C-alpha cells in the first residue's frame, strides 16, 4: 500500500456566494500519475490553487506527506516540494530560457544579497550548481539547444515544456500540471506523455488537470472526476470512462468520451 502524498479533508472554497470547491475528500498516491478531470467550472483550477497555496480554504484542510499545510504561502510550499505549472504559461520574458529554469532552483539554493554583492566563493559555487542542474532539466524536457533564447520566441508547445522544466528544477515531490496539453498538436501531446512518464520514473508524483481525454486515458493511473465543485467519481481510467455519473456530467459538454 503506497503512502498517500497528498490528502484533502472536506476541502471547501467559497467566493462570496459561489462555492467553487465543495467538501472534497481526496487522496493522491505517491509515485503515481493522477489526473483530475471534469467539465468546465468543475473547480479543477481552484483545487490546484488551493493545493499550491494561492487560495486559502474556506474550510477543511490539506495534508502533504501527512502534515497539514495550514496557511503556508506558495513559496513555502515550493520549498516543501510542491511545484506547479500554470494554464496561462507565465514564463519570465526578461531572461533567457535557461535562466527561467534556474529560477526554479531558488528554493534549493541559499546565497543571498550579501554573498552576491561581494562575489564571495559561496556564490560562485552555488551558481555553478544551479546552472548545471538547470541545464539538466532543460535537456530533460528536450529544450537543451534553446538555453539562450528568449522564451517568447519559442512556440507555445515548447514554452509549456519550459515551464515544466522550471517546475522540475524546484526538485519537487509533487508536481501539479495545469492543462499541460492545451494548445498542443498531436505530436507535441505524444512527447508530453512520454515526458510525464519519464518524470514519474524519477519518483515525482504527478497530478494533472487536463481536458484532452486521450492524453488522460493514455497516461493516468488514477482519475478523479469533479463536477460543480464536488468529487463525483474516481478510479482507473477505464472504470471512470464507464461511470454513469461521469457520462451524465459530460453530456452537456462537446467532448464525448470514447
Amino acid at each position, binding site marked *: 500500500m503506497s503512502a498517500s502524498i497528498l490528502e484533502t479533508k472536506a476541502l471547501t472554497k467559497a467566493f462570496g456566494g459561489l462555492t467553487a470547491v465543495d467538501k472534497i475528500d481526496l487522496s493522491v498516491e505517491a509515485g503515481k500519475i493522477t489526473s483530475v478531470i471534469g467539465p468546465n467550472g468543475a473547480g479543477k483550477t481552484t483545487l490546484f490553487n488551493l493545493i499550491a*497555496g*494561492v*487560495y*486559502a480554504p474556506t474550510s477543511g484542510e490539506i495534508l502533504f506527506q501527512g502534515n497539514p499545510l495550514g*496557511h503556508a*504561502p*506558495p513559496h513555502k510550499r515550493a520549498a516543501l516540494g510542491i511545484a506547479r505549472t500554470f494554464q496561462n504559461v507565465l514564463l519570465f520574458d526578461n531572461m533567457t530560457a535557461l535562466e527561467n529554469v534556474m529560477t526554479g532552483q531558488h528554493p534549493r539554493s541559499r546565497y543571498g544579497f550579501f554573498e552576491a554583492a561581494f562575489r564571495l566563493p559561496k556564490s560562485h559555487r552555488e551558481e555553478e550548481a544551479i546552472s548545471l542542474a538547470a541545464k539538466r532539466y532543460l535537456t530533460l524536457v528536450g529544450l537543451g539547444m534553446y538555453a539562450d533564447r528568449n522564451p517568447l520566441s519559442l512556440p507555445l508547445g515548447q514554452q509549456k515544456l519550459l515551464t515544466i522544466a522550471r517546475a522540475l528544477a524546484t526538485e519537487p515531490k509533487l508536481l501539479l500540471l495545469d492543462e499541460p496539453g492545451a494548445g498542443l498538436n498531436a505530436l507535441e501531446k505524444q512527447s508530453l506523455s512520454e515526458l510525464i512518464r519519464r518524470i514519474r520514473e524519477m519518483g515525482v508524483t504527478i497530478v494533472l488537470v487536463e481536458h484532452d481525454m486521450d492524453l488522460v486515458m493514455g497516461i493516468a493511473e488514477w482519475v478523479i472526476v469533479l463536477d460543480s465543485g464536488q468529487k463525483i467519481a474516481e478510479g482507473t481510467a477505464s472504470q471512470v470512462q464507464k461511470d454513469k455519473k461521469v457520462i451524465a456530467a459530460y453530456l452537456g459538454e462537446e467532448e464525448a468520451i470514447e
Partner: protein
Amino acid sequence: MTTHLFVQSLTSGLTQGCIYALIGLGFTIIFNVTGIINFAQGEFVMLGGMLSFYFTRSAGLPIIPALLVSVLIAALIGAALYLLTIRTARRASVVSLIIITIGAAIFIRGIAGEKWGVNPISPPAFTGKHPLHFLGATIQPQALWIIGITLAAAVVLHFLFSSTVIGKALRACSMNRSAAGLVGINPRMMALIAFALAAAIGALGGAVVAPLSFMSYDAGVGLGLKGFVAASMGGFKSQTAVIAGGIVLGVVEQVAIAIDWGPFKSEYKEAIALVLLLLILVVRSRKLSEEERVS
C-alpha cells in the same frame, strides 16, 4: 480644551473634511471605472481655485458663471489628460501609469505657477465674509457654502449613478470592464467621462474652498494625499464611506491642531493625514485574506 474651541474645531474640521471628501470621490470614481489612481487629482482642486480666482478677479465675471466656467475648463483638462497620456500609453504597467499621472500633476502645477505666480490667492467669498456665530464658535458663510455644495454634489452623484444611463454604464464598467464592453458600453468613453467628472468634482471643491483658505500653485500634492486618505477610508467603494472618511480626517486634523501640544502643532498637519493612512493600511494588511495578498 474649552467647548468653544472644540466646537470651532468641529466646524472647521467639517468644512475641510468636505473638501477632502470631494477629492476622495474623484479618486474613487476614476479608480472604480479605470483601475487607475490618478495622482493629478489634487491639481484639479488647485485649478478650480486658480481658475475661479482668475475669472472673478481678472476677468470680472460674477461668482456663479466664474464657478461654472472653472469647473468646465477643469473637466476639459481632465478629459485631455486622459486622452493625451493614458489613452496614448497603451497597455502601460501600473508603474507607468502612476508615473504618467505624477508627471501630469507636476506639469499642471508648473503651468499654474507660471501663469498665476507662486503667491497664494483667494477669490471672493460667495456671500461675503461676515462671520456667523453658532454655539460660541465663529463660522464663515463660505463654510456653509462648502458644506452645502458638498451635500448637493453627493446627492447629484448618487442620482447620477443610480438612475441615469451614463451612471449605470459607469457602474457597469467598475464592476467588470470586459463584460461591460460586451453589452455595448465603450470602456474608453467611460474612462474619459470618469476623468472629466473627477476633475470637475475636484475643481468644484477647489473653487469653493479657495475663498476661505487661499490656494497656491503647489497645494495640489497635499490635497491629493488627503483626498486619497479619505478614499482609502471608504475602501474606494462606498460613496458614503468616502465622505465620512473625509470628514473624519478633517475633524481629526483640526482637533489635533487645536490641542496644540508637541507633535500636534499646525505645522505637522500633513503628518496626521499620513499617520491615518498608515494606520488604515496596517489594519487592512492584518485582516487580509490570502487572495488579496498573493496574485
